[in-house]
């Protein structure tokens, strides 16, 4: 049998809540099919499967929160018979990282982690009321937890909070909330703290003239219909991807003490969300796509990121990240690397600057491109070549 597990949907995720199954037992699935929708603290993500098979049994039910790696469902491999297939042992599902309630009636709690009989309605009810299921005594058939049990427990115990306390200024715990913004803040804090703790960053920057790129873009957009218009962000994204081919030590993942370069460039794009927070889903195979295709992909990605509807592969496999903070008017941005990636390229605002070329001073639109890179995977010299390659590519926009 195939175990379908909850993947890591970004380096800042620890657990996920199953929202919905997209394949029911008996349904055939193939590689790349969306089989479930999982809520991380950032977005509802459509989780794809990367094996072919037939959905056999749901292990986790909608509404349950489980840690990364938990088995969500079992599938039959092609040709496998449900009667004879060996069902793997599955560790009992535990609520992931739920802090113990302050005043749980401990005597009533069963052994932690034991698989209990809880009706979906009771489970839903427990969640709505913030009741810790481990602390509820079941009075239904076979010790099953019923809706009435949940209501009794809700009256007896204070509600469980889903996020551990956040530290405010001066280290004082602030009132925890179930607020999505707070959850996202916490997720970002975890990933970025891990990055700064584990990754020896080095930083480089270079000011690049966009005179040629801007002139080319203006002429190109004047020719295109409005709906096919390109943004400078697409040109810079493409330049980064092509530069990765010349400098492969910027593109890939650092795992288990070594760097594994990636042939494909899946570029994560930092997208700020209107309600606050940040998400960096990836565009696949940027090295192999035309500018028009990238523009469509980027527009679609921004739209879906803001609507909270992303796919698992977009969240889990970016090989490098690009951030455009220039919109806010800042001159430059030095990003924090998303582990397990090894580089993040930042572009500041595009501004008209004095520019010396052929011994003359001209006014040219220019941008500060920056690189934060992982010193375990590359050195400053390689990083400098990488930035120089991005600059060179942007001088030949027609070839992008």
């Amino acid at each position: 049998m195939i175990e379908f597990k909850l993947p890591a949907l970004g380096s800042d995720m620890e657990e996920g809540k199953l929202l919905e199954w997209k394949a029911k037992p008996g349904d055939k699935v193939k590689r790349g099919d969306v089989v479930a929708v999982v809520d991380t603290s950032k977005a509802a993500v459509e989780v794809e499967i990367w094996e072919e098979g037939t959905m056999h049994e749901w292990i986790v039910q909608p509404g349950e929160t489980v840690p990364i790696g938990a088995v969500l469902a079992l599938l039959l491999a092609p040709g496998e018979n449900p009667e004879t297939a060996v069902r793997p042992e599955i560790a009992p599902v535990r609520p992931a990282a739920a802090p113990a309630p302050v005043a749980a009636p401990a005597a009533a709690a069963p052994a932690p982690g034991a698989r209990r009989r809880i009706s979906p309605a009771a489970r839903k009810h427990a969640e709505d009321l913030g009741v810790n299921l481990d602390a509820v005594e079941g009075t239904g058939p076979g010790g099953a937890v019923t809706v009435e049990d949940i209501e009794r427990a809700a009256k007896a115990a204070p509600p469980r909070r889903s996020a551990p306390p956040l530290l405010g200024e001066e280290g004082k715990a602030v009132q925890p909330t179930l607020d999505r913004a707070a959850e996202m803040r916490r997720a970002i804090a975890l990933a970025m703290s891990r990055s700064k703790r584990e990754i020896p960053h080095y930083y480089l920057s270079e000011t690049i003239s966009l005179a040629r790129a801007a002139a080319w873009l203006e002429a190109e957009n004047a020719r295109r219909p409005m709906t096919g218009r390109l943004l400078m962000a697409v040109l810079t994204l493409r330049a980064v991807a092509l530069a990765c081919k010349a400098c492969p030590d910027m593109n890939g993942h650092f795992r288990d003490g070594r760097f594994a370069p990636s042939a494909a460039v899946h570029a994560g794009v930092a997208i700020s969300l209107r309600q606050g927070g940040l998400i960096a889903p990836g565009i696949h195979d940027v090295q192999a796509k035309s500018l028009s295709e990238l523009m469509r992909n980027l527009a679609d990605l921004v739209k879906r990121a803001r609507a909270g509807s992303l796919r698992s592969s977009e969240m889990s496999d970016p090989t490098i990240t690009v951030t455009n903070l220039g919109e806010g008017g800042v001159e430059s941005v030095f990003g924090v690397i998303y582990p397990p990636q090894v580089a993040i390229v930042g572009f500041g605002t595009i501004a008209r600057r004095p520019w010396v070329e052929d011994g003359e001073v001209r006014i040219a639109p220019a941008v500060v491109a920056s690189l934060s890179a992982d010193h375990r995977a590359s050195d400053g010299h390689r990083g400098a070549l990488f930035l120089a390659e991005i600059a060179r590519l942007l001088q030949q926009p027609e070839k992008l």
Partner: protein
Amino acid sequence: MDALELRKTVVEELMRIAPELEEGELAGSRPLREQVDLDSMDWLNFLVALHERLKVEIPEADYAKLVRLDDIVAYLKSKQA
């Protein structure tokens, strides 16, 4: 479409892009991008939405004319005439 209707349409499309916006907060005489957090992707989406709704072409060269809400309404009015 008269100026009032045009303004209503523009604000509607703007609020589709920036749902956090409240109509009463918008001053027609102040630069729009000082009042609403619009990046270049939002801006393009906003103009494309107006283009599709009003069947108006808005060349990039005209972006410089579209600073305040009042400017945008006047521009669209002139294009429709």
